[in-house]
């Protein structure tokens, strides 16, 4: 096992450089905050590093599983959920149809923050990582039916909060059958 300065495994470092950006994007999606995302990525990397020699060529999957579990568990451990502004009224989307990109991102972020961390994890895996329901269930350690129901609830809440952004959203972006066909 090759090591560089400071005793860091060279292969681990290469893997971090290759996958760090993707992990950071997922972490931000799961937390909605740069600092929390930084902590989540770092904690994930620590877990990956502690098992690096046993992961062989499967660090990506392990990192994804660890990160989503940590994201859910962190919320469970907190005495209260992060400060969020929850209202019945959906946030305004800037100037309506002519809203700029920044407003759209802000609206989507606030909508995501109103989901539970588990629902957010399901949205991340299904709609950002493009995993099938079966794969999502395997990552989260739950049943496929749970993934389906969580997805349904999450999308309903997103539509409720940001209808203008998500009107054309389908519940099944990547079905298992579709995944098979894609392969």
């Amino acid at each position, binding site marked *: 096992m090759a090591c560089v300065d400071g005793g860091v495994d060279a292969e681990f470092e290469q893997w971090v450089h290759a996958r760090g950006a993707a992990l950071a994007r997922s972490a931000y999606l799961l937390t909605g905050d740069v600092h929390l995302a930084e902590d989540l990525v770092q904690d994930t990397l*620590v877990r*990956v590093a502690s098992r690096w020699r046993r992961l062989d060529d499967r660090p990506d999957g392990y990192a994804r599983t660890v990160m989503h579990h940590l994201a859910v568990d962190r919320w469970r451990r907190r005495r209260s959920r992060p400060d969020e502004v929850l209202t019945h009224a959906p946030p305004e989307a800037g100037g309506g149809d002519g809203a700029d990109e920044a407003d759209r991102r802000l609206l989507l972020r606030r909508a995501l923050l109103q989901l539970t961390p588990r629902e957010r994890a399901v949205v991340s895996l299904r709609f*950002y990582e493009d995993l099938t329901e079966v794969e999502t269930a395997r990552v989260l350690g739950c049943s496929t039916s749970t993934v389906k129901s969580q997805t349904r609830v999450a999308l309903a809440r997103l539509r409720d909060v940001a209808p203008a952004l998500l009107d054309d959203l389908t519940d099944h972006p990547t079905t298992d059958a579709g995944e098979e066909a894609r392969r």
Partner: protein
Amino acid sequence: MSHLHEQLDDLVEAPSRQVRVDPAAAWAGGVRRRRRRTALAGAGATLAVVLVVLVATSGWLTPDRIQPAGRDGRPGVTGYPDRVEAPWWVRDLPARPGPLAGLVELESGEWRGVSASGRQWRLPDQQDRTPALSPDGTHLAGFGAGDPEDARFEVRDLVRGEVVGMDQVGIGASSARADGPSTSLYVSPQQPVVWSPDGTRVAARGGPTGAGRDGAVLMGFGGTATVTPRPGRATYFVGWVGDDRLAWLGTSKDPVYVEIDLDGEVLRRVELPSLPDEMSQWSGSLSPDERFLAIAWPRSTSALVYDLTTGQQSGYTPLSPTSTTSEVGCPTTWVDDEPIVPTYADVLAGRVRTDPRLGEITCSIWATDAIAAGPQRSLTDRLPWRWREIGAGVLAGLLLLAGSVTWRIRRGVRRRAATG
């Protein structure tokens, strides 16, 4: 690629660039985490090993189980322990402890059953009565606990858990009751109870309650009890000859050894030259091959041995210089041709080492098959008597050390986090 995917990708693209990733710190954290996991696993394994050893060697929480089959396929005892420890806890004798190797009496008067491996159970309060163990260690005979008037002789099957009570056999105390005796037979509680060699019956000095000629009361597993008259006055019951004869020792001015059948008919007489002046009912003991008769007496330093084929004294069996013959009721144990007279100093003449914390063993009774099978070496044979306390101390020390190291490491991490 869904529409939502594009929007999510757009959402995270810019902020995620601000997320700093530090592979060196992650690797260092991973190494610490791996070490911590290894240390925890090691501590857990050590704790598990210590607990397993504790449980295995003390018999604590071990379910009652039957010992391996003995000779002739019968469940029997497989030997006797070479050392008897002072465990932290001693349970009452359960219904099915399996065959016992022996019975020991502590200074306090408490009797304990001892298995071949040295495991111990507390016997019910014997109230100065001496129990008896069958030759294969599977049956225990004696009086149950309770008031003298209500005490009944009973035989406990230590393998099957059955108890056969002899409702007609008491200790004679009931004859003093105003409403008359409640038992038809009595067995003197201060007399030796001897098992037949085949282990199917026990005999003890006794007779009909109230009136009638006394002798030996023979009791079987079926709850039957009969009396075989003794061959004369001033005779002590010394044991079985085969399974159908009883041996008695006449201690009058013309000492004699007498064998009778179960109907009381004299079948053999052997004149003996002399007997010690001070004898008790525990003095005489017949060797397993029925050739020798050993005579011990209180506070003696040796046992007199007669060869019954010649009627002559065949020698003295000297006891160790520091030994004192037991003054309490306790039978002699034979190891091959050597009579082992119970003494306060040694158990089985030093063959069984006892934890000093048990105090003096005032009496020990051993199953014939256990003696024949020989000593069983204990797992803790080479350890000091206080190995449990030492082990617990070492374990506590290791846990304290681990806790201290963990606390110092965490304190250091917190300090570094606070300063940097």
